[in-house]
């Protein structure tokens, strides 16, 4: 509490006037010799105490009345707690806030409609009221759920126009990041000549209480933010306006991914669609389908809080990237009922299998196992691999031009011309799978394939094989794409026995992806130029290990070859991930459009790499489809990307009361609950404090009446 006229507070000494009068009266007493004492003492000491208590009460009431009257004349007021230092004193000195920052939640949860009106509509109304209240002051509008845009000061008219066109996205709001941006904006506002901040802003956060939006606002962050705001002294108040909302029954498509690593034209494939029920009630027969194909909808039953994955069939009809849309008909916000997936339909991977095995066919040679692993159906368009088999004697190097991946199985050594062709192949982006065997000469390998830097094909220095020391596979780097197929398996390590392997010394740039029980590397990879090399340190025949006879072998070989064939184009992105498209040919930079609009130069990067041009675009914070089109060699080319909405955004569960109170305490904000009342009184009270003199005068009158009634009840004047 502060006072407009603190000097007047000196008048509170008037509170002692009743006391002084009391003592003066008491000291001027009359002395009487009294006979009827028995009527005074009747009732004993307790009654005397009661009389004293009554007298003290009256005296206290009179003193309080005088003190309150003096305090009321001093103009008391209460300033709302401020974030910065010296908030109340600054208000009383007339240095109140002079700017506003509005954080507006545009995330997917704001799409939820109740009574024909979305949460975002309510939020927009409130934002409009705030703008009207801050007319003439610098105002900044920071939107949440559409990426970290640069915050800037603007004015009421411009922001009103922006608000009118604004719609909610399906993105995830990060309240903590938004509040950080508000402070950053104030930090950039500078310091006024007097030493204080140039702008003192009230920060308004308009959002629902969706827990996902506050996920990053943990206790340590809140502490840091409060401390930063306090030190900055430019943030006056934080008012959180909670738009109407709460838990809503919603069923959403939480995730979507292809069931198979490769899909080809006219080849039946499947899409895995994960459906989740975030509501509190059981959902029966929820239909999930691809596109408009409701006839092939899968029906699922979902318990509260449960999720289910359904497989939906699909036959791609053309090469390239296709956008597949899964839909469901459950309750909840519309954005959560749809999810797009960019499906890459590719040609089979061309593999050159060079074998140096001298044994007869059918003697469990490594090349046979590899070939079988890459073509289990012997149908290249179904298996996804076209394997060209060639003996090492016939390998001239020219064959590498027809393939994407070369597998060197059990080669004794390589001729210089073969080594040169292989190095060039890797440098140009090809992948080489080295699988030495009993024919392989360790010294020849080390001498011919181990080199310096980019010249080196071999990622390790091999030692002679240790035969007879049986071991087993022990550990895998499950985060590596090769072992992606092992994720989620309860026991990913195959029960294979390795009877012979090549001990090796890993070179500096190599990465060990799997090891034997004795910690010796089993699988090592290294990047050379634009290509990749993968080395397995045991022969892939059935004599050196039982690995080819396990269920692990086929997916392992296929996954390794896909890895070596190069990274798949990244078409499914998360909000904020940059999209990258490469075009072969002469690109007209001015022709680049994204969703038929020229991209903002700050978000676009164009990198020429010879005849190849790589285009990057970073403003991908709003979920949805991004169609990038450009003229290449005088022809329009396009690439489609899908930025998927975050699965957490579909979880509309709000923060509970305890969590909200904890945030209130930590961040020091005031909450304005939804109501039909105008914001103006609340905001004025928050900014300028609340005048207390009417309350003081009321209290004075009340106490005066009380004193009068008590005096009348307790005292008796002679008739």
């Amino acid at each position, binding site marked *: 509490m502060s006072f407009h006229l603190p000097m007047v507070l000196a008048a509170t000494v008037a509170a002692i006037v009743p006391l002084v009068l009391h003592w003066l009266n008491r000291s001027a*007493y009359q002395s009487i*010799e009294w006979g009827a004492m028995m009527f005074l003492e009747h009732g004993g000491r307790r009654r005397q105490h009661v009389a004293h208590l009554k007298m003290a009460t009256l005296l206290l009431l009179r003193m309080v009345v005088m003190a309150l009257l003096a305090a009321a004349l001093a103009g008391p007021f209460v300033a709302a707690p401020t974030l910065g230092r010296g908030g109340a004193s600054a208000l009383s000195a007339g240095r109140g806030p002079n700017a506003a920052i509005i954080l507006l939640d545009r995330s997917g949860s704001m799409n939820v409609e109740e009574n024909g009106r979305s949460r975002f509509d309510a939020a927009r109304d409130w934002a409009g009221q705030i703008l009207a209240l801050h007319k003439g002051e610098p105002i900044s509008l920071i939107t949440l759920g559409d990426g970290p845009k640069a915050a800037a000061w603007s004015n009421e008219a411009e922001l009103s126009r922006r608000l009118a066109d604004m719609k909610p996205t399906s993105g995830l709001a990060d309240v903590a990041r938004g509040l950080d941006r508000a402070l950053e904006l104030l930090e950039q506002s500078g310091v006024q000549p007097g030493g204080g901040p140039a702008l003192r802003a009230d920060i308004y956060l308009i959002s629902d209480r969706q827990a996902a939006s506050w996920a990053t606002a943990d206790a340590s962050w809140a502490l840091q933010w409060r401390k930063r705001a306090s030190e900055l002294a430019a943030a006056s108040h934080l008012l959180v306006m909670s738009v109407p909302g709460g838990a809503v029954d919603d069923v959403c498509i939480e995730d979507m991914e292809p069931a198979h690593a490769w899909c080809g034209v006219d080849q039946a494939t499947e899409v895995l669609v994960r459906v989740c029920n975030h509501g509190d009630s059981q959902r029966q027969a929820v239909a999930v389908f691809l596109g408009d194909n409701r006839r092939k909808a899968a029906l699922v039953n979902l318990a509260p809080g449960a999720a289910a994955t359904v497989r939906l069939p699909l036959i791609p009809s053309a090469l390239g990237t296709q956008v597949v849309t899964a839909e469901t008909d459950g309750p909840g916000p519309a954005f959560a009922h749809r999810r797009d997936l960019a499906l890459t339909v590719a040609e089979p991977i061309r593999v050159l299998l060079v074998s140096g095995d001298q044994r007869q066919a059918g003697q469990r040679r490594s090349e046979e196992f590899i070939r079988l692993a890459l073509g289990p159906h012997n149908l290249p368009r179904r298996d996804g691999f076209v394997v060209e088999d060639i003996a090492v004697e016939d390998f001239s190097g020219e064959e590498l031009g027809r393939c994407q991946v070369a597998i060197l199985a059990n080669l004794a050594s390589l001729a210089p011309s073969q080594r040169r062709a292989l190095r060039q192949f890797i440098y140009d982006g090809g992948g080489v799978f080295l699988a030495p065997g009993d024919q392989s000469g360790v010294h020849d390998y080390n001498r011919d394939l181990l080199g310096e830097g980019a010249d080196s094909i071999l990622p390790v220095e091999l030692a002679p094989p240790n035969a007879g020391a049986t071991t087993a596979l022990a550990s895998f780097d499950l985060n590596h794409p090769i072992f992606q197929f092992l994720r989620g398996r309860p026991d990913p390590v195959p029960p294979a026995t390795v009877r012979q392997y090549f001990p090796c010394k890993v070179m500096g740039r190599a990465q060990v992806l799997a090891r034997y029980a004795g910690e010796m590397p089993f699988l090592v990879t290294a990047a050379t130029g634009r290509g990749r090399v993968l080395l397995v340190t045991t022969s892939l025949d059935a004599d050196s290990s039982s690995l080819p006879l396990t269920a692990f072998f086929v997916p392992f070989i296929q996954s390794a070859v896909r890895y070596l064939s190069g990274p798949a184009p990244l078409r499914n992105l998360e909000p904020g991930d940059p999209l990258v498209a490469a075009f072969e040919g002469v690109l007209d930079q001015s022709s680049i459009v994204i969703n038929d609009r020229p991209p903002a130069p700050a978000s676009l990067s164009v990198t020429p790499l010879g005849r190849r041009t790589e285009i990057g675009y970073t403003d991908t914070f709003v979920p949805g489809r991004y169609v990038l089109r450009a003229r290449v060699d005088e022809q329009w080319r396009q690439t489609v990307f899908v930025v998927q909405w975050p699965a957490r955004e579909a979880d509309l569960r709000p923060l509970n009361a305890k969590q909200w109170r904890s945030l209130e305490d930590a961040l020091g904000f005031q909450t304005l609950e939804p109501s039909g009342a105008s914001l103006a009184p609340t905001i004025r009270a928050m900014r300028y404090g609340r005048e207390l003199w009417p309350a003081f005068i009321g209290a004075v009158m009340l106490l005066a009446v009380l004193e009068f009634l008590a005096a009348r009840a307790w005292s*008796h004047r002679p008739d």
Partner: protein
Amino acid sequence: MSLIGRFLDPNLIERLQQLQLSARGVVEGSTVGWHKSPMRGPSVEFRQHRSYVPGDEPRRLDWRVLGRTDRPYVKEYDQETNVRCLLLLDCSGSMAYGGAAGASPPTKFDYACRLTAALTYLMLAQTESVGLALFRQRIGRWLSPRSGTGQLARVIDVLERTGPKGRSSPAAAMRDAAGRLGRRGLVIMVSDFFAPARELADGLAVLKHDRHEVICLRVVHRDEVTFPFQRWSHLRGLEGEAAVMCEPALVRRRYLENFQEHEQAVQAACSAWHSEYQSFVTDQPLAEAMTRFLSRRAGR
């Protein structure tokens, strides 16, 4: 002014000559008077006939009845006697109150003395016997009931020599008086009765047991009735009670309640023991107050 003139001014004497105080019940006097006596004796008030027994005076025979019936009957008459009246005067400290500082007398004791003297004068004028007992916690000065004009002088002499002080106990004084009074008579107690009503009732019970008629005359000051003080007051007890510093406005209500409650209790005790009660306030002229009291008593 003579001593008598100090206690009995001519105006009061003139008014008293028109008044009369008589006993309501039967009393046992020492001489012939006009009050009823339990004795049979010469009188004009016929009571009854009874058969003659040897030893009766022959002059009491009803000769007419003897002549008509030939049986000897004796006529009996009620004896009339004078009243033996004892005046019990409270001389305790509380009777010394005559008003707050600066107020002029009379004190309650002065008023009570004048009342006592007036009653003595009145009773002696009716040829009654009047005695006086001054009491505090017990009876101190005792003047036996006598008749005759000399008794008035003796009473006034005693009053003149006495002053109020110390604690009082009307009940003890009543018990004491009952022990000293032989025959049944009239006891008039003049006091402020600032004592527990229950004790007063006990004293009355003793007197009534001895078949005395009792009249309680209460003398209080106007201040004691209204508690009129305005300023802070330091009240010091006249009978040795602890001093009290008080804001009169805060204690007035309770004081008056206590006072009235006590007065009602005293009245109730008197009523229970068939005693007469009358309150005198010192600011009332004594002549008027006595006239009112005696007229009311006579009218009953």
